[in-house]
């Protein structure tokens, strides 16, 4: 009964976005539900392959269709309120494929409850932007819906609060700086442009993980625990480590259904199979995010980085032992962060021309600003008045403090006991510094 209500509510939620999304998710779920049952009884590989391909086909068609309507998934992709024609299709398609493969391999028993399956895809906290749930675990949860305890409500609400904070206080404050940099609006150069470029990754993290927090919190209110999607990615000490901390469920899916099978199939080629596997993994995840040369570049960069890491892993380990971790770790984190930001530059840029223009701006002779106010702060915030400076100082202080104390904040803010002091501070910062309305039209023209 509860399942029905949740399923129905989820469909209504999707309906607010578009009726087409509802229709499509229903059709997709029913078809995959049926084929899950079929494949568990009939081990026909051809059927598995064709159903998987059909799911993939629809995913790309509906995303490509998006393109022809003049929307650039490249720059806008990080706006989680997806502009996809069918809401959530990128996520539930992967879940569907996972389900088909698992039932075919008898690793799970197909569900008999169609509503359970529809909910598996449409569950409103996670339909918009994940996390991508494992069929085994999530279907089991849905089959045996827990009753939300008081602890669930408390933790859930707090998690939603943190998510809102991250989005409205941090991500939204950084957003105009990033768009100004990427639109090449202001004649900034060198270090200033580079910081603007890096801030995209920061913004993306707070925006995306903020939404995920809201998703996790909402699910928790119902007593359901979803899979974590982030694990302090800015503390990653290598690119490989980064991908174990960023969009975890996507990469777990890719590892399980793409990477391992490919590498295993070509295992006789030893390390080349690993590299080939990595190539496929990143090319396809680039495609999953969007179609374009920029995503291809992003993918290739990561292939390069990880291949290097895989091939030099033992050497680097030996090297790390020789140097104190107090030096090695911060340097690794610093290098990793910059490499990630470099690749994200292509991810965010509207086009390769835009990306190269930004790079040209960055790598100039006078890299560091001569005058910090005029050459660094002012171009980033779009003005050099005291007011502008005050606003950008606040933005930087808030997000840097948050990143440093993130673990503590989570511990204290999302616990069974409500920590009054922490929440009072969070609320006050939220009210005083949160962005409720993009008063940007005013900001831009303010002198």
């Amino acid at each position, binding site marked *: 009964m509860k399942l029905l209500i949740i399923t129905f509510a989820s469909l209504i939620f999707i309906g607010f976005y578009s009726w087409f999304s509802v229709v499509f998710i229903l059709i997709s779920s029913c078809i995959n539900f049926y084929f899950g049952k079929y494949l568990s009884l009939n081990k026909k590989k051809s059927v598995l392959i064709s159903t998987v391909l059909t799911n993939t086909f629809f995913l790309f068609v509906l995303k490509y269709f998006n393109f022809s309507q003049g929307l650039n998934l490249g720059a806008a992709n990080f706006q989680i309120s997806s502009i996809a024609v069918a809401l959530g299709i990128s996520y539930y398609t992967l879940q569907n494929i996972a389900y088909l493969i698992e039932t075919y391999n008898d690793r799970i028993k197909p569900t008999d409850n169609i509503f359970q399956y529809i909910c598996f895809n449409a569950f409103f906290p996670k339909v918009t932007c994940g996390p991508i749930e494992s069929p085994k675990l999530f279907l089991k949860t849905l089959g045996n819906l827990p009753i939300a305890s008081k602890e669930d409500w408390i933790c859930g609400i707090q998690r939603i609060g943190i998510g809102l904070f991250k989005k409205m206080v941090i991500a939204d404050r950084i957003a105009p700086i990033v768009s100004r940099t990427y639109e090449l609006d202001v004649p900034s150069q060198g270090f200033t442009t580079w910081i603007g470029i890096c801030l995209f990754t920061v913004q993306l993290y707070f925006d995306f993980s903020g939404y995920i927090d809201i998703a996790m919190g909402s699910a928790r209110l119902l007593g359901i625990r979803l899979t974590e999607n982030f694990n302090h990615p800015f503390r990653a000490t290598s690119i490989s480590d980064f991908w174990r901390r960023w969009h975890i469920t996507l990469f777990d899916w890719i590892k399980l259904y793409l990477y391992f*099978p490919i590498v295993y199939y070509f*295992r006789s080629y030893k390390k080349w*199979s690993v590299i080939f596997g990595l190539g496929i993994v990143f090319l396809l995840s680039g495609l999953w995010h969007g179609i374009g040369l920029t995503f291809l570049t992003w993918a290739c960069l990561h292939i390069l980085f990880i291949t290097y890491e*895989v091939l030099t*892993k033992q050497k680097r*380990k030996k090297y790390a032992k020789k140097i104190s971790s107090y030096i090695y770790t911060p340097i690794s984190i610093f290098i990793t962060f910059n490499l990630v930001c470099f690749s994200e530059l292509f991810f965010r840029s509207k086009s390769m021309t835009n990306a190269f223009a930004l790079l040209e701006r960055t790598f100039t002779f006078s890299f560091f600003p001569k005058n910090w106010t005029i050459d660094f702060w002012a171009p980033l915030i779009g003005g050099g008045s005291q007011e502008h400076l005050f606003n950008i100082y606040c933005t930087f202080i808030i997000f840097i403090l948050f990143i440093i104390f993130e673990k503590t904040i989570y511990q204290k803010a999302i616990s069974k006991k409500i920590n009054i002091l922490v929440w009072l501070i969070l609320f006050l910062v939220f009210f005083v510094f949160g962005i409720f309305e993009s008063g940007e039209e005013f900001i831009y023209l303010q002198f």
Partner: protein
Amino acid sequence: MKSEIFETVQKIFRTVFEDDNLVLQKNLIADDVEMWDSLTHIDLITSIEEEFSIQIPFEKVILFETAGDLIEYISSVTK
């Protein structure tokens, strides 16, 4: 029979992970061994396949969680 397999597998582990002192245990997992990563894992599996003249299908390989699982599988297919 099982102890022979055990000995052979231990030898392979020692070669692949470059550790002559490695002691194979049933509950050994990747985290326990310094050199166990995606590359050496491939090495490990292919070396075992070569040694025992078997082909381990993918669906079985991903179910292995410990060295013990691997050894169980080998004994079951080399009877």
